[in-house]
């Protein structure tokens, strides 16, 4: 038992007198309730557009095109998966939509892994290796975050098309390289913050034991950095998955394009074919939604850290 007496239990101390006028108290309670109602109203309002599209994606084409999705409630069993099978076979620029799904996978996984591997090496060097001008180079790297990627689109595209750059690397590989370039400053900055804050004693002990930088990096730093690598990886993966601009500029023809490209094309050419657009949108959003729902903690951390990305 602790020595202090709980005033509410013991009744020894008079509770502090509440000086707030009764009117104010009622007003505050009311404003609290009004505030909570407002939060739920906003939450509902925020959800309605997505739910509308989701419900529509399961309704037969005729119903989608003749009545509002809210009419679903009058006949809730009238649902179908036809829209989903229809959109996967639907051709965009001569290719089935399913092809674009796999393109997104093919673009986004390396598009996230490559820059993080390269940035992790650099972040280690900036944290634990001694070399002349280290801090200045690091400041220069971080300073590159002021450059919006739009500044680089025209010159980089010219470079990729100049013949100086090997043809074998055109298409999807150019998209990977572009994402690696644009993601580099932020990735180095964030990983340096993390790797640089690992305990100095661990590094020094390993050095004393004769471990090389490469061994320390592979055996100690990488395993310890898994949470940081995961947050950054999820952020970068979703960034690439959701990207339209970089793929559109560097991907060349439709053959190398992700789903975002195919969706914009469908909106332009089949803007009223909602049986395709509704299902297509959910095929495109399913991966981010799964990531969001299953890895929300990492997602929020990555988002907070990455929100300054150029």
């Amino acid at each position, binding site marked *: 038992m602790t020595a202090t007496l709980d005033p509410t239990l013991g009744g020894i101390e008079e509770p502090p007198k509440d000086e*707030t006028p009764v009117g104010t108290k009622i*007003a*505050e309670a009311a404003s*609290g309730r009004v*505030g909570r109602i407002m*939060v739920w109203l*906003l*939450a*509902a309002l*925020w959800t309605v*557009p*997505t739910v509308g*599209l989701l419900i529509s994606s399961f309704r037969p084409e005729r119903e989608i*095109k003749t*009545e509002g999705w809210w009419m679903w409630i009058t006949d809730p069993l009238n649902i179908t998966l036809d829209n989903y099978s229809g959109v996967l076979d639907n051709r965009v620029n001569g290719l089935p939509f*399913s092809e674009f799904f*796999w393109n997104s996978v093919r673009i986004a*996984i*390396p598009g996230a*892994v490559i820059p993080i*591997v*390269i940035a992790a*090496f650099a972040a280690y*060097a900036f944290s634990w*290796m*001694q*070399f002349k001008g280290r801090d200045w180079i690091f400041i220069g*790297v971080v300073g590159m*975050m*002021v450059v*919006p990627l*739009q*500044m*680089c*689109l*025209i*010159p*980089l595209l010219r*470079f990729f098309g100049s013949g100086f750059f090997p043809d074998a690397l055109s298409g999807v590989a150019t998209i990977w*390289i572009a994402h*690696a*370039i644009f993601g*580099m400053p932020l990735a180095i900055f964030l990983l340096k913050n993390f790797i640089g804050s690992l305990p100095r004693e661990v590094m020094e002990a390993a050095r004393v034991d004769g471990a090389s*930088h*490469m061994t320390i990096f592979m055996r100690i730093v990488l395993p310890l950095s898994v949470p940081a690598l995961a947050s950054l990886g999820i952020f970068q993966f979703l960034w690439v998955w*959701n990207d*339209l601009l970089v793929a559109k*500029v560097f991907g060349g023809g439709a053959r190398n394009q992700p789903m975002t490209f195919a*969706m914009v094309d469908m*909106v*332009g050419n089949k803007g009223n074919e*909602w049986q395709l*657009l509704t299902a297509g949108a959910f095929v*495109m*959003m399913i991966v*981010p939604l799964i990531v*969001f729902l299953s890895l929300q903690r990492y997602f929020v951390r990555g*988002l907070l850290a990455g929100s*300054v990305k*150029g």
Partner: protein
Amino acid sequence: MEDWGSMGKIVSSLLVVALGIAVFVAALAALYWLASRLKEPWRERARVAVFVGPALLLLLGLIIPAILNFRYGFYTKELVTLEDGTRRTVDKFVWFENYSEIFTNPANVKVLTNTLWWGIIVTSVSTFIGIVIARFADRMRGEPIAKALIFLPTAISLVGAGVIWNFVYSPRDYGLLNSLYQLLPGEQQTQFFLQDSKLFGIQNEWVPGLNTLLIMVVIIWIQAGFSTVVISAALKGVPDDLVEAAKIDGATDRQAFMRVVLPYIKGTIITVMTTTVLAVLKIFDIIQTMGKGGAFGTSTIANEMYEQAFPQNNEGLGAAWAVLLFLAVAPIVYVNARNQRAMREAG
């Protein structure tokens, strides 16, 4: 089965990538081993080069293009006839002609003012909504659910968000906004949102224009979740005794929030606002999805940069738009960085 065929292709290409990364790491390890055989002072330098070299090489792909882009902004493409009668395009140095085109052509001035309104309206509204939700949801029953619902749009792509809202704005019977509009008393005309510059009988000349406002709603819908989550996290960090002290001094809930809590989380609010401005200035995907690439007065700087440089093949003008975007973004990144440092130093 077409799907399984492409899946096989995917698996094999992912294997190639995994192999590629493994080979890359092994190559770095091998280079590091080679570097270790050199004599000092070259040994340590070579080891450092193995670690930072790949990253610096990629960063050259950022620095050199950024510098070249300034140059391109002073050029334009011109069709010339050579002595042997063939015609080809050459780059012609035109000083500030691309920039004067931007600042004097009314269509381009509209793009600039649109972008300005985007920054002002979307940033202030979404930050305000974030503060309101974070405050009233704080310690409320069901707080995580309400916040997750509002945060959900942050995860999806701008293209996906564009499709969702195109559906809401559709002029057909299934368009939610038009259906609500029809509920108003009297005979209501169908409005062709995003498909006509004349809405509600008003020609869409005034800045920023109803179509632009409709697209802004979508970005507010996305960004409000971000501000809610960040501000909510900051609110949980405000010490209870600070608020209690204000209340004992006779402050109401609202006064305590406005005069004690808000100033306490000022740094977080600046972070939210600067990051929102940065996202908004680069708005592109949504204009492509909802505004048909900038039709009906909806274009913005980043959209115009793309449209000029690529579909229009007018690289000089596109480069000039990119420079303007840089000039708009750079000071905000700077303010953001300084604010972050101040917050870290304050603890």
